């Protein structure tokens, strides 16, 4: 296959995309110049494909083909539809921050309800003041594309010592069909702060849209953070999200992701310990059906000694769906006493379901405890028969066992209300199985 031709083909499409988007992109001429540079770097690479190791199982050229034009800024009708979708998704007690088709919608957000220790700005207001917002260490093509085209996002800063009782919920709503939304957000959590951040992705009637989101999370020392992501997009949507997380010293981070929608989705998380004595729990659930493709790729970088990381990933795959889990744990030469483990399990509900599990350990220190495990299999017939012999019809017996299977990951959510909300989404998914 001729790689050069494919790249050119994609490059041309993106050139048009950038030219048509340029008028809508916020930022000073300097910012626009940086965007152009990012976009040129994307143009050189094109959409990731299977010959790029990190994207081996998620070939965006084959699965997505082209990047759709930017969604128009939402009009009154779009905002009305978004408001209804938000109402259905809102988590009781949470402060909502709503992004509609890639634009922060202050009127739909609980800006006034935010705690006084939280500072909120829209990304578009901040770009000229903070050039770092569009920069990340990654050379990944989709991240470069995000830097080039991000129209908005939220920039949150949680003060040192803040103890937030209410979660902050960032809700991405798509109302525009066959269009793309590029968002970038940053969350900075101060020293000793305690906070729960939720991100939800939903559709307000929109079909075949694309989401490219990037989030930069910086957590200070002695903090305690729960970060919950719920990717519940429309069944024909595409969602590629990149997360860059740095964790300070003596900090606890409990990260959870659940994917229950989108034709093609990928969450790529890059989590780096920057201070000693911290604990990270990463829990993920993919619930996939029909021909959905869901990819969770995590890189946990033990850059400093004495940190603990635990990854628990569960995939439930029905019909002809395809789940990918790539987990890499890097232990740098100085990171002695690292304790890093990951366990991934896939449950295949049909003969045509597919799971790819790729655990990787890169260990450069000699006094560490690291391990990984991976399994894939069907529901246990003896358990199914036991439940049926007690009166549960087949589907109900399956649902109970599937809930138990994903429960191990969901149980890690400490907040009762939030955990019930997540269980509710999983139950709805189970009820929709035909």
């Amino acid at each position, binding site marked *: 296959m001729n790689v050069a031709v494919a790249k050119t083909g994609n490059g041309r499409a993106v050139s048009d995309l950038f030219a048509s988007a340029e008028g809508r992109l916020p930022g000073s001429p300097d910012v626009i110049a940086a965007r152009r540079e990012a976009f040129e770097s994307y143009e050189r690479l094109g959409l990731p494909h299977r010959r790029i190791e990190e994207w081996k199982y998620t070939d965006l050229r084959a699965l997505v083909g082209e990047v759709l034009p930017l969604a128009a800024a939402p009009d009154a009708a779009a905002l009305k539809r978004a408001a209804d979708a938000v109402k259905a998704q809102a988590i009781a007690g949470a402060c909502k921050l709503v992004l509609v088709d890639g634009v922060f919608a202050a009127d739909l957000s609980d800006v006034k309800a935010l705690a006084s220790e939280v500072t909120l700005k829209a990304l578009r207001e901040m770009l000229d003041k903070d050039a770092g917002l569009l920069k990340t260490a990654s050379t990944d093509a989709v991240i470069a594309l995000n830097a080039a085209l991000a129209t908005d996002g939220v920039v949150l800063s949680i003060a040192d010592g803040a103890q937030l009782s209410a979660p902050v919920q960032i809700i991405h709503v798509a109302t525009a069909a066959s269009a793309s939304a590029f968002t970038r957000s940053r969350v900075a959590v101060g020293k000793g702060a305690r906070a729960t951040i939720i991100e939800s992705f939903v559709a307000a009637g929109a079909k075949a849209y694309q989401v490219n989101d990037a989030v930069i999370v910086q957590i200070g020392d002695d903090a305690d953070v729960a970060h919950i992501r719920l990717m519940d997009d429309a069944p024909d949507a595409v969602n590629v999200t990149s997360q860059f997380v740095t964790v300070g010293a003596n900090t606890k981070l409990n990260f959870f992701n659940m994917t229950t929608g989108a034709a093609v989705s990928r969450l790529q998380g890059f989590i780096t310990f920057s201070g000693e004595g911290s604990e990270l729990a990463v829990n993920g659930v993919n619930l996939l059906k029909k021909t959905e493709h869901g990819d969770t790729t995590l890189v946990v970088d033990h850059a400093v000694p004495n940190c603990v990381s635990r990854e628990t990933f569960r995939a439930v795959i029905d019909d002809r769906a395809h789940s990918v889990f790539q987990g890499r744990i890097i232990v740098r030469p100085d990171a002695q006493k690292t304790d890093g483990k990951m366990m991934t399990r896939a449950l295949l509900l049909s003969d045509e379901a597919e799971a790819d599990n790729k655990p990787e350990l890169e260990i450069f220190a000699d006094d560490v405890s690291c391990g990984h495990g991976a399994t894939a299999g069907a529901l246990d017939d003896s358990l199914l028969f036991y*439940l049926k*012999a*007690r009166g549960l019809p087949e589907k109900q017996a399956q649902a109970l066992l599937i809930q138990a299977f994903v429960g191990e990951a969901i149980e890690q959510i400490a907040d009762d209300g939030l955990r019930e909300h997540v269980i509710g989404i999983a139950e709805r998914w189970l009820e929709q199985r035909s």
Partner: protein
Amino acid sequence: MALLEVKDLKVRVEEREILHGLSLTVNEGEVHAIMGPNGSGKSTLSHVIAGKPGYEVTDGQILFKGEDLLEMEPDERAAKGVFLAFQYPVEIPGVATMTFLRTALNAQRKARGESEYSTPDFLKKVREVSKSLNIPQDMLKRGVNVGFSGGEKKRNEVLQMALFEPSLCILDEMDSGLDIDALRIAADGVNALRSPGRAMVVITHYQRLLNYIVPDFVHVMSKGRVVKSGGKDLALELEASGYTQFEDAA
């Protein structure tokens, strides 16, 4: 009308015939013991009555309250009143015992067109039943059978039997893996459930269990058939003479 009628049942597993024309009639209120050597087809019979997959019925009939049991899914059989107490109850990690019991009970009630139990009513009922069987509440808080001893697993089966109130209980090798104290506790639970409206089929290799659960009838199985039937004394006779005579007869 008999509660359970097994007529000339022939069953295969893969290519091998296990039951070669077995017949058995059980009426309401009766306790039948089925004894026999290993491999005689006792457990196969219990599995086929409960509807376990993997068995092919090539001939014969099983009628339950006059209805064709073989046409029903396992869950439909449970809702009609068939209960199999498993020889080795499975562990189901992640499914809380209380959730399991409530889901199962309500699924059976729903299938029969009865109203489902509300959570408070259900809790009240479980508390009553578990108290009468001396089952500690702590056991109910764990995952289904997870980390249970052999005796606890069997007591959990008896608890379900008491809760679901089936009209036919099949106890498959209830004594296997139990010491004498655990056996006595489980058997006491079963005896408490004997009633004029409920029949039991007790499958066992050893006569020992029948000291605790005294049957009305004893059937000896060998090589896929019932080769001798009699009263409870037949079990004692077997204990003295062994199964060899029947293996020759079959």
